[in-house]
């Protein structure tokens, strides 16, 4: 007798029986091996995937301490009997599981008799009864809607359908157009608790997403982007031209990366260089200067730029302009969870005739409003190439205190006038780091998880879109 035959016979016997049938008994009546019948029962159980009787039996036995698990056993965990006899016969009776498949065709009672008193035998027999949805034919519920079900009947395809459609159109066929075998199908319910399948896609880096937003803000404000693709800069342009004295601490090896190859810059605009030398060593343009022995050798030293302001300085001569840049700068600093040797500097510059400190504050207000920061206040600060210099603080609602969000100032005349800018031109500027707002935005505590190869790709994969104002 084929397996299918056994299943069919079994179903008929269940239908005929009052109450239910016993699997052992049925097997002998049908003259098949009991295991064949067990197979048939299991295939019926498979129609309801919630059943897992083996495991339930095991856990009952475990909880009653009839068996024990030795995980350290050679060759993997083994299960051992821990009692010689189960004296509580009621408990053995408890192993006759009543497992219901309430929703579907069958009621199946599974009788499990674990003969714990004899070590050799484990006989499981099943007590099988009708379920609420009992029928003698087996129809598996469909998992998914298929093109065939929509077309009409499972096997045929679109071509056939096309032909039928055209026949219908021409009116040559009397056949009624009844699309869809899906109408007769039963469908398994979806599990809406589960998550969907993750789409196969690429991702942008969170820091770059934030950079995009900052660029957007600057562009919205009418700021032109500066070409900042020059990491290597001479000390002259990075420091001297910004009126930063040669003995300034920032020019120490502790703070700045010097270049050993190519060590020196070899080309300077000579007339301008003389003007810079003069303003440092003697003063001029209404300034006392720093009055020290300015050395070209110091200015020639190549470094990894420590800020992008050098680029701003070079862009300034085009009057009435607004510039911005977001690019890498380098500091030879001690590293910690929030500081790296390189970071992205965001810089905004406005150059025009007659700008005021109020204009700087107004512009900053507009800029930070676009970031969702409206409460600002300004603290006097010191910076060698801006005067006045102001630290920008914003009120952090979460921390309930004022936190520093950026630096700003008005470029010193000692920097601008040697460049040939007219005297009535004022240049206002501000800067902040890109990493800090990104870490806050994406809740990252260690900067190394954000920038560099130690990045956590899962974080990149899971990152939301960046809306700075919210």
């Amino acid at each position, binding site marked *: 007798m084929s397996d299918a035959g056994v299943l069919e016979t079994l179903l008929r016997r269940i239908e005929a029986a009052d109450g239910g049938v016993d699997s052992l008994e049925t097997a002998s009546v049908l003259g098949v091996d009991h295991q064949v019948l067990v197979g048939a029962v299991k295939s019926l159980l498979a129609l309801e995937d919630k059943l897992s009787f083996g495991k339930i039996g095991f856990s009952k036995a475990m909880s009653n301490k009839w068996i024990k698990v030795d995980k350290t056993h050679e060759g993997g965990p083994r299960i051992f009997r821990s009692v010689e006899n189960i004296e509580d016969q009621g408990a053995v009776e408890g192993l006759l599981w009543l497992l219901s498949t309430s929703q579907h065709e069958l009621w199946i009672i599974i009788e499990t008799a674990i003969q714990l008193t004899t070590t050799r035998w484990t006989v499981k027999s099943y007590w099988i009864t009708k379920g609420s949805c009992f029928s003698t034919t087996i129809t598996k519920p469909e998992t998914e809607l298929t093109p065939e079900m929509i077309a009409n009947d499972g096997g045929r395809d679109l071509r056939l359908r096309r032909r039928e459609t055209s026949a219908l159109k021409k009116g040559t066929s009397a056949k009624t157009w009844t699309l869809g075998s899906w109408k007769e199908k039963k469908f398994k319910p979806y599990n809406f608790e589960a998550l969907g399948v993750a789409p196969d896609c690429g991702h942008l880096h969170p820091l770059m997403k934030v950079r995009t937003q900052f660029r957007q803000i600057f562009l919205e404000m009418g700021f032109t982007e500066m070409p900042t693709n020059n*990491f*290597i800069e001479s000390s002259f342009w990075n420091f001297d031209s910004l009126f930063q004295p040669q003995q300034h601490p920032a020019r120490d090896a502790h703070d700045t990366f010097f270049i050993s*190859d190519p060590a020196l810059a070899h080309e300077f605009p000579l007339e301008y260089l003389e003007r810079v030398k003069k303003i440092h060593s003697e003063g001029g343009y209404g300034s006392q200067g720093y009055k020290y022995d300015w050395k070209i050798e110091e200015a020639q030293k190549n470094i990894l730029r420590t800020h992008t302001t050098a680029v701003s300085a070079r862009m300034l001569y085009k009057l009435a302009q607004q510039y911005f840049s977001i690019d890498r700068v380098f500091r030879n600093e001690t590293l910690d969870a929030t500081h790296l040797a390189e970071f992205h500097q965001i810089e905004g510059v406005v150059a025009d005739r007659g700008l005021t400190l109020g204009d700087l504050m107004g512009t900053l207000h507009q800029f930070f409003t676009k970031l969702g920061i409206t409460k600002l206040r300004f603290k006097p600060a010191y910076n060698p190439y801006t*005067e006045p210099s102001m630290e920008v603080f914003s009120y952090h609602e979460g921390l309930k205190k004022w936190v520093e969000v950026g630096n700003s100032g008005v470029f010193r005349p000692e920097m601008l006038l040697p460049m040939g800018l007219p005297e009535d031109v004022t240049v206002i500027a501000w800067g902040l780091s890109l990493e800090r707002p990104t870490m806050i935005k994406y809740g990252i505590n260690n900067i190394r998880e954000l920038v560099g190869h130690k990045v956590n790709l899962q974080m990149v994969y899971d990152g939301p879109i960046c809306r700075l104002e919210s």
Partner: protein
Amino acid sequence: MPTVGVKRDLLFKALGKTYTDVEFDELCFEYGLELDEITSEKEIISREQGDSKASGASDVILYKIDVPANRYDLLLEAPRYRRVSPLSGEPQKLIITEETAAVRPHAVAAVLRNITFTQERYDSFIELQEKLHQNICRKRSLVAIGTHDLDTVSGPFTYTAKPPAEISFKPLNQTKEYTATQLMSLYKTDSHLRHYLHIIEDKPLYPVIYDRNGIVLSMPPIINGDHSKITLKTKNVFVECTATDLTKAKIVLDMMVTMFSEYCSQPFTVEEAEVVYPDGKTCKYPELAYRKEKLSSDFVNRKVGINESTETIARLLTKMCLRSEVTGVGDEIEVEIPPTRSDVIHACDIMEDAAMAYGFNNIPYTTPRTYTVANQFPLNKLTELLRQDLAAAGFTEALNFALCSTEDISDKLGKKISETRAVHIANPKTAEFQVARTTLLPGLLKTLAANRKMPLPLKLFEISDVVLKDDTKDVGARNSRRFCAVYYNKSPGFEVIHGLLDRTMQLLEVKSERGDGYHIQAAEEIDLKCSPFKYFFKVDSTFFPGRCAEIFVGGKSVGRLGVLHPDVITRFELTMPCSAVEMDIEPFLGHPAETTRTHDVPLHEVIKHHFPSQVPNSRPTSTKTVFGDVSSAAGLKALDDFLADKSYMEGFEATQADTTMFDAIPSAPSSTFPHLLRWYNHVKSFLRERANLPSAKSPFVLEEDDDDIDLFGSDDEEDSAEVEKLKEQRLAEYAAKKSKKPALIAKSSILLDVKPWDDETDMAKMEECVRSVKMEGLLWGQSKMVPVGYGIKKLQIGCVVEDEKVGTDLLEEAITAFEEYVQSVDVAAFNKV
């Protein structure tokens, strides 16, 4: 930032007002200070030395305040400066010998007479020296301060320099004499002094100051002698400052003496000392110079953006310890800069003090009237756009450091560092910062290694700058924008990386073809073929032999792709095959990226140097333009409209098109054409450097006579004519090529998916049927069976068709006619040949 401790109650007494801690914090903020900590001496001692020691200490509340780096004058309690004048009489002399020139050439000195030290003042005196040493003295490298009990020594003093072995004295707080050589090794382990040893360590002569009897006062900048040390009983103090920077030495001396002259019997007086230079000249110190500056209140109002009366501004400045008076001449204010305010070097510093006194946060916000049209930097714009689409192509963006170890870009990639054109860093703190990267690949491989636990395949990309040495640049190096991507999986996936390259080229509108388009070819092959270029195309040891191809665009190599060499994979601690692509993206900018990396300050001499023959154009130019006659209002109106949303005639920078148009306009336009006027004024600012502006792409100004088009008479006249010629020739070639094209028979290569009814369909028979379809202009190609699932296979078959003769519809119809085998036909791929 230095921190000072101030007794709260004393401070409030001096201020004449008491504040709560919060109020005081706010007050500090307004003046750029920071209330760092509220503590007491007792608390400090108990924290540092334990509770037992703290029992006797004072409970008086201390405010610890952070002071910004330019306000050294705030380093003491109740900051104030005093007018002091030197006493008359025979001054103490400090004679400088010429030996000092090579090591520490400057020295200044002064005397504090009849001073009374208390423990508190004494501590404060020592603390001030230390603060000054750390800040303005740049850790004693610029200036070193020595203070001595004048009654233990006798002048004149000599500041000289001697070989270290010849200097011998008992240094401060030591019990015996040491030579300078011994001292240097003694202090090697001193946590405080060892930081200063380097200043003179390798000099042949060490600076030293003797009194008339040969007693050593100090060996600057390391240590003073024990003999002349200051005690609580000291009455007369000799202050000397030795320096490498005279200006700073004067400032430091001024600060030392002004701060402590208060405790002299005649308060705020300092006795002068005379310094004798090697050339016999003499000079008296301290300078204590009071400087007067004049500025107008209008200047302050204009710069700050406020509108206050001259009197108010003078009052504000006086409040900031800058005594100011209204002179009565217009709105002039005379400001006295005391010797303690060495940070005030320009009127803008005075303006800042006025702004601070007014209160930064009281200044009304205004918006600049600056009108601009925003532009993106073309290279960054391209980068932004590409990044979006590469992510859409399924690759994830990485962001790696621009600095890395030498090993990363050389050994690990199987290359020699000498081949890399890498820029080297002189003072790296760790191996991670030895060089600037020359390739993006190591960063991506390290990112892979750090994320090995993530599910495969890993697909990463980065578009960022590398740095290469380049002698043509002023600094000898330049950035280069690169695109790099890696694919890391159980199989190398060269086809994936190749596909990404194809997609990238598609995004960049570069066709797959030799010549103008792009193609890839085996890197080794070229090595054999053209020996002159061997250097450029030699086998790349980063890649697996035979699995590396060079990417050519318009005949020029822009990068490489291939399967990484197993050794490279192992060196980056990876275990799976990996393929990669890296290429320059600057060649795809359309027009050259802004190349003006040399610093383009408007410098007459640079321009003159390069363009000596530039002369203003005096010839009358045509007023006929594409906008009509610009000498007429109609023409100007058209031009004004054109410029309404543009900064320049062409593109995003000033070009010859702007200057040419500028010349065409007879006179400055009236304000009825606001856009034109803005543009006109803007372009005017470029005229000085017009000759090196990029050339125009299209003619806006129409010529009246066509024999001479060069308006500028620049040197490169011939060059540009040649370039023009070349361009024309190219255009002609291109046009010819284009016109030829339609004559060719347009063909397409089609890949068809033919699906059978079920797994029992005879596939061989089906293929036979398909191939039996014969049409003119149809050529069947290779085929294969592709498993679909459940044992069903589909037939994938290629064919080449002539577009005009065979349509896909026709083909489909013909194949589906074999109903008993064929269920459906789909076009899997369609490519123009």
